[in-house]
């Protein structure tokens, strides 16, 4: 089946076509660039929500509950659930789906599991493309679940409109997660497992950390401000199994959406994201080509080795190396 037919079938609601297109993205198929260019005019209608946090925090359960609420309001939902690949075997157990069983037969919900597949921004690219494909398929909301560790997962979170960071009362790891960089990406904090001891304490601890931040204005990130207004990151307590608090969570997400829509931040983020996306893809390709140049071009290899051996300062060879590598890249690009 050709790409145009596949896209038409997807737009007509054929799930097999939608699933196949996501597979092309996952495999970085040669036809992918045609696919992405063809769906480009159909993008931008879905609202994307990221759910991240440590393993076992209840992200899948909350995704399930959010989906429930969105469906009750009549919206269609696409879900991308990402689990880590084993760094040793490359295999993965993709188990998020089990918590979303309520929606297995709902025609308005499409669930896709993805493995992080380790290295070099591969996941980030495939997940971003998968989000776009779901958008083009006409889903109203796209929920993206990732495990909140590792740079690629943070990259994925940079590509959604609203990010919810899920934490749990146990073991003070909430504070660890904040240190690990999740603070910077959160538009909303969710303290899940609110049925457990220590939940109210974590909620108030988070609130006071945030309050401190907003009262010392130097710390407000660009993410949170739009013109004169500031989005004060809210903290919501939830229970992933019963659904308690999830209505509140969705209300906060919707309020964030309205905030960034009204302030122009949403459009700004989306533009910024497209630019980042493009540049990081270019950078990735260039880096690959550069590695190849070091292997294949004797001149480049020799210069690089002088630096590797400690004989020359990098500063001293750059002048010669730059034109050589640019030449090499130009020759390579003719082959593309």
């Amino acid at each position, binding site marked *: 089946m050709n790409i145009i037919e596949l896209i038409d079938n997807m737009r007509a609601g054929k799930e097999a076509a939608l699933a196949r297109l996501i597979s092309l993205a996952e495999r970085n198929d040669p036809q992918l660039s045609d696919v992405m260019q063809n769906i480009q005019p159909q993008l931008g209608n879905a609202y994307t929500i990221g759910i991240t946090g440590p393993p076992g925090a209840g992200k899948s359960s909350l995704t399930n509950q959010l989906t429930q609420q969105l469906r009750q309001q009549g919206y269609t939902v696409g879900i991308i659930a990402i689990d880590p690949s084993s760094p040793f075997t490359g295999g993965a157990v993709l188990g998020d789906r*089990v918590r979303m069983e309520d929606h297995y037969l709902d025609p308005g919900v499409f669930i896709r*599991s993805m493995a992080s597949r380790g290295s070099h921004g591969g996941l980030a690219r495939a997940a971003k493309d998968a989000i776009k494909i779901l958008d083009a398929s006409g889903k109203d909301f796209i929920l993206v679940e990732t495990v909140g560790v590792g740079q690629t997962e943070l990259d994925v979170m940079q590509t959604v409109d609203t990010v919810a960071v899920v934490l749990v009362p146990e073991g003070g790891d909430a504070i660890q997660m904040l240190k690990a960089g999740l603070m910077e990406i959160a538009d909303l904090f969710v303290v899940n497992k609110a049925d457990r001891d220590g939940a109210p304490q974590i909620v108030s601890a988070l609130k006071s950390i945030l309050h401190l931040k907003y009262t010392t204005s130097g710390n407000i990130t660009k993410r949170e401000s739009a013109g004169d207004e500031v989005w004060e990151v809210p903290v919501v307590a939830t229970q992933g199994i019963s659904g308690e608090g999830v209505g509140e969570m969705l209300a906060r997400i919707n309020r964030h959406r309205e905030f960034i829509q009204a302030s122009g931040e949403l459009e700004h983020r989306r533009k910024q994201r497209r630019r980042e996306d493009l540049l990081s893809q270019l950078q990735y390709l260039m880096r690959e080509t550069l590695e190849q140049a070091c292997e294949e071009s004797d001149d480049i290899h020799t210069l690089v080795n002088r630096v590797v051996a400690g004989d020359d300062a990098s500063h001293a060879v750059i002048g010669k190396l730059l034109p050589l590598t640019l030449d090499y890249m130009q020759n390579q690009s003719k082959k593309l």
Partner: protein
Amino acid sequence: MQRKIRVLIAKPGLDGHDKGAKVLVNVLRDAGMEVIYTGLHQTAEMVARAAVQEDVDIVGLSYLSGAHIGLTQEVINALKEAGADHMKVIVGGNIPERDFSQLDTMGVAAIFAGGSSYDDIIGTFNDLVAA
């Protein structure tokens, strides 16, 4: 690079024995496959829909309850209905030898009764996808 094999492991019907399915999921993961587990108590429609959405190469059905004949036929029908009859269906668990030929006739690609070796299972999965 070799294409990643994607597998769905499902437990159709009312059978609550999930120990074997969970062991199998980890065995396949350790063999480098991406394994999606659906959970217990799946209807044929649920299995087929998950298989389509996940665009898997292989649908593995695990039974210890004895209901494998009827349920496997239902899953195969549902896959056909969903336009996914290219996916290979593999059956395993507590499957008596007398039922093998009937499952074969339905179009099941391989059968693994309890006690099958993991090397056999992994080898068959790899071969079926490579074929």
